[in-house]
């Protein structure tokens, strides 16, 4: 799993209840996901079940198996541990 260094720093600095937005890219495994959410949907569902709480907001880009997730750090830590996650990134970056 690729953890964006910028997000890694944000997560380290954040308190457990601090809300952050991240970009999740799921492994596009066969027979997972649906047309509306792609492979990211089942990953978010699994973490929500595990923790017994849902993220505050999710926007899916199913053709890229991507979700932009707004959630507390606790939820994002669990996402980072999920084997279905290929990339976890901050929503912003330094540009040229």
């Amino acid at each position: 799993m690729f953890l964006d260094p910028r997000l890694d720093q944000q997560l380290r600095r954040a308190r457990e209840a601090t809300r952050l937005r991240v970009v999740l890219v799921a492994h596009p495994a066969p027979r997972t996901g649906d047309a509306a959410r792609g492979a990211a949907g089942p990953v978010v569902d699994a973490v929500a079940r595990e923790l017994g709480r849902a993220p505050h907001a999710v926007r899916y880009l199913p053709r890229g198996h991507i979700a932009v997730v707004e959630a507390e750090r606790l939820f994002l830590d669990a996402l980072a541990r999920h084997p279905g996650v290929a990339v976890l990134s901050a929503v912003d970056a330094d540009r040229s």
Partner: protein
Amino acid sequence: MRFPWSLNRCGVPALRGAGLTGKGVRVGLLETGIRPEHPALAGRLASYAELDRRGVHVPKPTPDDVAGHGTHVAGTICGGAAPGFSSVGVAPAAELCVARCTDGGDAIARILGGLDWLLDQEVRVACLALGVTGRTPVFDTLLAALTGRGVLTVLSSGNRGAGHALSPAHRPEVLTVGSFGRTGRVSRFSGSLNAPRGKRCLKPELLAPGEEILSAAPDGGFAKRSGTSMACAFVAGVAALLFEARPDAAAGEVFDSLARTARPPRREEAYRSVGGPLDAAAALARLDG
């Protein structure tokens, strides 16, 4: 027809003289926006989107471009006449699909929203004059989706100089473009990706004009800008001409025709770019051959 130095240097007049204008070819741009009312861009805008900071579409957006970058890039791709010149753009009949997503913050979320939008715009070429520092794979799945739809994705190599490449310009499936100036030398700012040991260059594949480029300005006039974004726009415009000439060409064929016909780089600049300056006429000949 009278063209600026930059179009002459890339061999564009030969293609324009053969009647190629980019007609029927859509080019996608992820940009700061566009001023479609600019006289040199009238009638070029086919579709427009604006992504907010969550990467969500703004309903019924009005095209605008405060920063001016998108208007300038658009002018190089398909701009019309400017004082003293027949056109500042490479492919003046090409159509543009522009997503405003590179001004302001939350760049990754917004660019991803823009890439997803481009999948529905029936573009043959995606001009991405953008990049973020470091090597992130966050764009990979949507870039692969674009490639899967037959889109040629053209990236700028970035403006941080030799040895500094941006994401996603480092990706092998995208055609990455660096910059050269009037002297023909690689621009000092032009970025490159080099092998870890030695200086063997891996990116960009070729160079295009990127210094003092005259194109459309957001105030309705014309202005000169420099950067690999400008160079990227030249290659996107030439790709539009090639797709017009060979509508059945695969994106990979156009990629190869552009990359493999670039003139050789100067020996002392071989670490700055895999290939040298763009040669549009040679690219067309290879595609026809």
